[in-house]
């Protein structure tokens, strides 16, 4: 095995920064401790810049020297796109955390350490070239977040949320590990490159293989909160510190999907018959349950939690036709486009919710009445994010992501799923627009007790960065589809 440390420079940088932050935290005086948040932001900025070259060529490390070439860390260009999304998402989360860490008395050093560890795991997960790396990556994403969810001291909600999340994380890694071992038993290799070769297995091992594939996919089902593996989401989202919720909804979810893409798009392509139909059904269930329950939510965080479940359905839907290109369209390119759009839109909405929760202390939707007139930046950003999530102009980022998802499903010939998606788009439209209308409505009387307030600079920056990404992707939707150029056509 050859080691090429240059290939893993970015994850190493983040892991190294995590350790440095922990050390800094031990030696800095209490007053200066919050500075470590900025150390994290700078490191993530460097990581973002460092990932850009990988968009063209990818990155490899830990390659085997025997057999057909394969690397344990094998970042494809489309994976680099997801790396950028996760790194930027984590940076925005840190910006949002500056205030929360101070107000909720969270230990800054541990906070940044755990977050950077989790991001490192997310990067590894999206670049995994074999099943063991995949399992380790998934574990590394999840376990630090368990700590982050629980960091809020004294709150019963936080502990409950953390426990739920812990159990789900453990279950999901255990299922993946179990599934990977069955696949290994049937195929005798952990390398995704080997698994992607469609060589026959002995008939008596066929059921072993199918069980392995299903278990591994279900493991990711928990991670990406697909129905029926979603029950942990609302309580965990509501109980965690809000920036951590944003992290769960954006970075952690994108990481889960990145892992799923690597697993089924790169490794389990020949066994699409055992995962594709199941994922189609899961997609239909996920979007329907997510959107219908979201209709009834009166709390911003819970609404976004259920909406993120609904949105996940559109990401999973293209998986219904397996991993091979149909009519020149790679069905697994659409999820990458959708994830990029989803991250920009959802992060914007969460950033505004973080900003507003500080103002009111509650997360009720009713508090958003007339927000546009009190907080023009936050209000406009939220309206834009909601319109984009609904998939209407001017939020072209959401519209094009939906077109991509519909296109993959329709080209794949899954008309039934396209119909379910169509109905869901309308259901979701209702709650997104209702919220947006509330934000735009001018308050009947100008309440003196709610003057135009200024946003704390880091929160304002977080909102600005995420809404700028959403606007940029709306103006230049081709950036969303760059993923298609980057997507390697799956081996025939």
């Amino acid at each position, binding site marked *: 095995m050859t080691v090429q440390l240059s290939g893993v420079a970015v994850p190493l940088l983040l892991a190294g920064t995590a350790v440095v932050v922990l050390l800094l935290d031990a030696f800095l005086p209490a007053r200066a401790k919050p500075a470590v948040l900025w150390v994290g932001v700078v490191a993530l900025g460097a990581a973002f810049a460092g990932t850009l070259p990988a968009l063209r060529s990818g990155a490899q490390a830990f390659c085997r020297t025997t057999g057909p070439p394969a690397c344990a860390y094998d970042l494809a260009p489309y994976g680099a796109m997801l790396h950028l999304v996760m790194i930027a998402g984590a940076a925005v989360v840190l910006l949002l955390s500056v205030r929360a860490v101070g107000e909720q008395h969270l230990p800054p050093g541990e906070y940044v350490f755990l977050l950077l560890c989790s991001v490192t795991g997310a990067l590894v997960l999206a670049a995994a070239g074999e099943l063991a790396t995949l399992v380790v990556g998934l574990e590394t994403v999840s376990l630090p977040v368990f700590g982050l969810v629980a960091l809020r001291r004294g709150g019963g909600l936080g502990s409950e949320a953390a426990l739920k999340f812990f159990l789900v994380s453990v279950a999901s890694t255990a299922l993946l590990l179990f599934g990977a071992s069955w696949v290994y038993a049937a195929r005798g290799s952990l390398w995704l490159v080997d698994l992607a070769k469609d060589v026959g297995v002995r008939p008596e091992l066929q059921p072993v293989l199918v069980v392995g594939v299903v278990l591994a996919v279900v493991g990711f089902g928990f991670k990406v909160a697909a129905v029926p593996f979603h029950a942990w989401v609302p309580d965990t989202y509501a109980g965690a510190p809000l920036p951590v919720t944003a992290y769960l909804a954006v970075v952690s979810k994108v990481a889960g999907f990145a892992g799923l893409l690597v697993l089924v798009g790169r490794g389990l392509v020949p066994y699409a018959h055992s995962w594709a139909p199941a994922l189609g059904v899961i997609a239909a269930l996920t979007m329907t349950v997510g959107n219908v329950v979201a209709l009834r939510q009166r709390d911003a965080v819970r609404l976004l939690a259920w909406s993120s479940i609904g949105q996940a359905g559109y990401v999973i839907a293209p998986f219904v036709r397996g991993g091979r290109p149909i009519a020149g369209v790679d069905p697994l390119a659409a999820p990458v486009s959708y994830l990029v759009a989803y991250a920009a839109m959802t992060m914007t909405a969460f950033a505004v919710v973080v900003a507003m929760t500080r103002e009111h202390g509650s997360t009720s939707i009713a508090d958003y009445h007339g927000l546009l007139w009190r907080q023009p930046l936050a209000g406009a950003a939220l309206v834009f994010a909601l319109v984009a999530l609904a998939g*209407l102009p001017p939020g072209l980022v959401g519209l094009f992501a939906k077109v991509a998802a519909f296109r993959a499903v329709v080209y794949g010939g899954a008309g039934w799923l396209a119909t379910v998606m*169509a109905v869901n788009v309308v259901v979701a439209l209702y709650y997104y*627009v209702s919220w947006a209308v509330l934000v735009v409505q001018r308050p009947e009387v100008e309440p003196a007790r709610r003057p135009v307030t200024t946003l704390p600079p880091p929160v304002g920056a977080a909102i600005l960065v995420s809404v700028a990404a959403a606007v940029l992707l709306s103006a230049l939707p081709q950036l969303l589809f760059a993923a298609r150029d980057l997507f390697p056509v799956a081996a025939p």
Partner: protein
Amino acid sequence: MSALTGLLLLLPAAGAVVGCLAPRTAAVRVGLLAALLTVLDAAVMLAVFGYGASGVPQLELDWPWVPSIGLRFHLGVDGISLPLVVLTTVLVALCIVALRRYVPDPGHERALVVLVLVLEIGMLGTFLALDVIVFFVSFETVLLPMYAVVAIWGGPGRRAAANKFLLYTQLGSVVMLVGLLAAASYAGSFSIQQIVDHSGHGMSHTVQVLVFLAIAGGLAVKVPMWPLHSWLPDAHTEAPTVGSVLLAGVLLKMGTYGIVRIALPAAPEGAHALAPFLGAYAVVGIVYAALACLAQRDLKRLIAFSSVGHMGFVLLGIATLTPVGVNAALFGNIAHGVITGLLFFLAGAVKERYGTTDFAVLGPGMRAKIPHLAGFLAVASIASLGLPGFAGFWAELLALLGAWRPADGLPRTAYLVYLAVAGVGSVLTAAYFLAMLHRVAHGEVAARWRAVALPGVSAVELATWLPLVAAMVLAGVWPRTLLGLTEAAVQRLLGGG
């Protein structure tokens, strides 16, 4: 020359941006300037359009947009879209002229003008699009501005009406998207021309039926076809005048235009299989709307229901799948846009003066009280009921003529029944318009209005209404102006038939 096409979208966009930044008092003037420049642009297009080749797209603009999925920003006009483009620019300009005189509650004229200009971008984009995704994006662009126009400047039930409009038409749009993508997957391109030329090759009969059902069915919500029409009366009744005018005058046409432009040629066999059903729904709509109109006690609601009936004639024309019928449909599109646009302007003028459009409160005796307004109302009503000499006449007559001899292979007996039923519908149409005039315009002035001074018709109002009257007379006396334009393009869409 193709810059003209780009300017059609750019001018309203520039107007909207400048309108946003301009001081509040100047916003309407800025919007009017932008709208008039757009009309001028459309007029120049009329002048330079190659009438000898009206069947093929001209003044094309074709830029790569998202190269990696083969999406192009592709616009152009042909004989079918050109009249609709002109109609749109003129109606938008007239709406903004009307806003100079009267802004519905709660004011905010700057926001209203900007929304109308954004609406114009979406409407023109829909008619100009030569790529299904551009078509879809434009189609969606009108949704939120119209929602806002109804929800902010509408009547007492505006929120519910606006929500209904939004959810119904969005469901239609997404179903249409599924159909468009399916058609594109078989044609191997998003280009509308390539989808037309491909004309459903390689699709099985079932797929053709499903594709036509998805595209035409999705669009039928916007038309609206009975029984998918129920959002329309509410939206029209609650919408402010400019909203109603653009909704009836242009937005509904986007539906029938899309059916003719994309649904028919994309899946000809599917169209053939479903055309008799389309015809049946169309004539049921005609009679249903006429009966509903007879029962209406409100002017705006009556005009709204009459739209369902008129669009029924348009759909009947399409359902014949013959050049005569489809030409009638495209003619009917323009005729209805002009006539109903005028009717909604008049209803707005009535509402402004009387504060209501309820017959029981209004009438009788408007002719004695405000003679000019009553005169316009009578002319518009007579045009709408299809009297010879006005545009509406040809639209109905040609649709009926098409039904007399539908395309080969369609069940002729069924179409003869449709013809008879539609004929009954058009008699009923005459009945309800005359009944409305009788209740509102004729007779002694009602006691409650006798002592009230009501303003007469102003010069701005005349300037808004007269162009529409001129257009409906012109198209009525000289229908060749319009039919000659659409004919060649229709031949091409119907596969040379």
